[in-house]
């Protein structure tokens, strides 16, 4: 015997004692006339009673201390989570420092490698013209010293004392750095910026 499908939500509420007002009155009239729905209500109440009876009563003694024991465990969890976050932050900071150091070293190497051409290139026209003038020149490129060593190449050597200091290691100052950067192409500057962790132009 199947209950009326459209009455099921109301039957469920009625069985639980949660149906009130006009809806309840209407359902009670229906139940008077429908044995299937009456049986369904009895079934639901019976099963629910069986379910409740089969669940042992809660131990009030255990429950009394439950909040304290649970909070102890929650504190351990919370503290572990905070320690985990702290160690992650530390690791992250160490990694960032290491990366910064490596980037700085690499950028210094790059500066050093790009430093030499600028002073040489800037002097090249003067020395070249001087060399051409006295007939002993080759092209300035032959005197191009990539590593910016202190050795003064004979072909690019200048007799001008004002520029002599510019090619020595001791004279690598801010002005020279600016000149070096100015001499880099946009592509080279972008690469340098990326190495330093900045976004390219």
């Amino acid at each position: 015997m199947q209950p009326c499908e459209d009455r099921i939500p109301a039957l469920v509420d009625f069985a639980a004692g949660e149906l009130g007002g006009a809806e309840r009155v209407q359902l009670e009239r229906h139940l008077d006339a429908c044995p299937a729905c009456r049986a369904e209500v009895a079934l639901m109440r019976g099963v629910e009673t069986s379910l409740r009876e089969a669940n042992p009563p809660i131990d009030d003694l255990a429950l009394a201390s439950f909040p304290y024991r649970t909070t102890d465990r929650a504190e351990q969890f919370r503290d572990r989570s905070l320690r985990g976050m702290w160690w992650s932050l530390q690791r992250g900071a160490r990694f960032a420092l290491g990366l910064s150091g490596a980037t700085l070293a690499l950028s210094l190497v790059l500066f050093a490698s790009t430093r030499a051409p600028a002073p040489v290139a800037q002097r090249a026209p003067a020395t070249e013209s001087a060399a051409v003038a006295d007939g002993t020149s080759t092209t300035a490129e032959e005197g191009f010293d990539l590593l910016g060593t202190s050795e003064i190449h004979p072909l690019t050597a200048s007799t001008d004392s004002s520029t002599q200091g510019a090619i020595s290691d001791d004279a690598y100052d801010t002005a020279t750095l600016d000149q070096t950067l100015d001499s880099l192409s946009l592509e080279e500057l972008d690469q340098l910026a990326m190495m330093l962790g900045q976004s390219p132009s």
Partner: protein
Amino acid sequence: MAWEVLMTQARPEAAVQTEADADRRLVEAFRAGDRRAFEQLVRRHQRPVWAIVQRFARDRDVADDLAQRAFIQALERIAELRGGFRPWLLRIAVNLAKNHLRDTAKLVREDDAPQADEGERPQLEGAIDEARRAQRVRQAIGELSDRQREVVLLRVDGALSFAEVGESLGITENNAKVTYHHAVRRLRELLGGGVSDAAL
């Protein structure tokens, strides 16, 4: 505070929202270091959590562990909370109970039942009958579909309204009632004569 009372009387959903906010504030207070906030939260919701997990726990220690884990998981996943705290917490408890049931699926064998000396037999027979009945109900619940089991546990043990059951499971209130009805019919088939008689 009086205004809150008036608001909750006028709009029941406002009462739920106020309670949900209060529960969230307790969690935040605990995370900021207020131990008593968490104790209060636990005290508010421990009974239905216990009722759900102990049905599937073989003993009190297991029930205690499952109940604690429900609160710890809720703390861990608090960012996922959208609606009311209790329906969400009880769903966590139901899932823990379900996993425990799956992990320990084993019939209570006859020789697992408590043995009695001659003098103690009458007292223990009742206890054995009760244990067996509980075991049969536990098995029957285990044979329901996942959704039916969730609805039954949240409703019967969690004492949630059908609206809250629906909220917990992401289904409509009507759907929760219909699912509950189907679950009850299925349990009736599984339990057979083990169902209490109830009159209208």
